[in-house]
């Protein structure tokens, strides 16, 4: 299962980005082989339509969960149609490695 996390930087120590559409990086984490991939967000500075464009990018990677601080109204409805689960984290002091650790807590 693949999980996308919005990140402010391209290392495991960087913090979660509270915005979805205009975050700096997307981290694609694969829970099966524990691999991470950092993708710089091309929609970071776009004026309009950053959310749907980012959804397209994330969905093309085949993720089933997306973790961010907040999601816009357009983004929510597209993800709902794509059957992708959204997770909102309010605190901004969580790093990417913290979140990956939380995800691995199961079993």
């Amino acid at each position, binding site marked *: 299962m693949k999980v996308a996390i919005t990140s402010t930087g391209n290392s495991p120590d960087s913090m979660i980005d509270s915005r979805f559409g205009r975050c700096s990086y997307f981290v694609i984490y694969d829970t099966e082989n524990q691999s991470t991939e950092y993708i710089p967000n091309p929609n970071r500075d776009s004026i309009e339509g950053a959310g749907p464009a980012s959804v397209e990018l994330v969905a093309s990677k085949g993720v089933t969960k997306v973790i961010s601080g907040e999601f816009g109204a357009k983004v929510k*409805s597209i993800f709902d149609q794509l059957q992708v689960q959204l*997770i*909102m984290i309010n605190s901004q002091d969580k790093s990417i490695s913290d979140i990956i650790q939380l995800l691995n807590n199961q079993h």
Partner: protein
Amino acid sequence: MPRPKRIRKVTNPPHFKGFKPMGILPDKPPVVLNYEEYEAIRLNDFELKGHVEAAMIMEVSRPTYTRIYESARRKVAMAFVNGQAIVFEGGKVYFDSEWYRCNNCGCFFNHPQKDQEVTHCALCHSTDIRIFSDKEEEKQIEDIYICPCCGQEKIHDENNPCNEELCPDCNCKMIRKGILSNKRPIETKI
């Protein structure tokens, strides 16, 4: 110019595109059933909710809901009798799913796979979760009082009338937190 249509909430959109009649050639144009009409039939005839309750779920008025439902039944009847296909398409809707809150890690998550039961948090796998609603959040704000002068916050005590609540530091009358933005601080003479 007519008033714009209120946007309808669809909690459970269909996961297929439509229906087609068996045994005849599809020579007639299909009937287009809007998502809101599908949702109206689902709420009333499948979940057996009353019009008032269903209207509240779709966030429209009761007469509007009844109109959507009426139109939906007519379209379904037309498709049945004429042997037309039905396609689900369009409508002034937005899709929404329920949100859950985890008491362990404090995150919020939704659940798009509606046929599966929600048992644990999507992030930390804790089983300490509950359904989150906006009303709950509003209530929390109402219960907090804030001093307009020094900004000190206090949780409302049920036994004390709220208009007599005084700030322990500067003796100001305290006000509800949610309405602070549209009220200027009231200075009291000491």
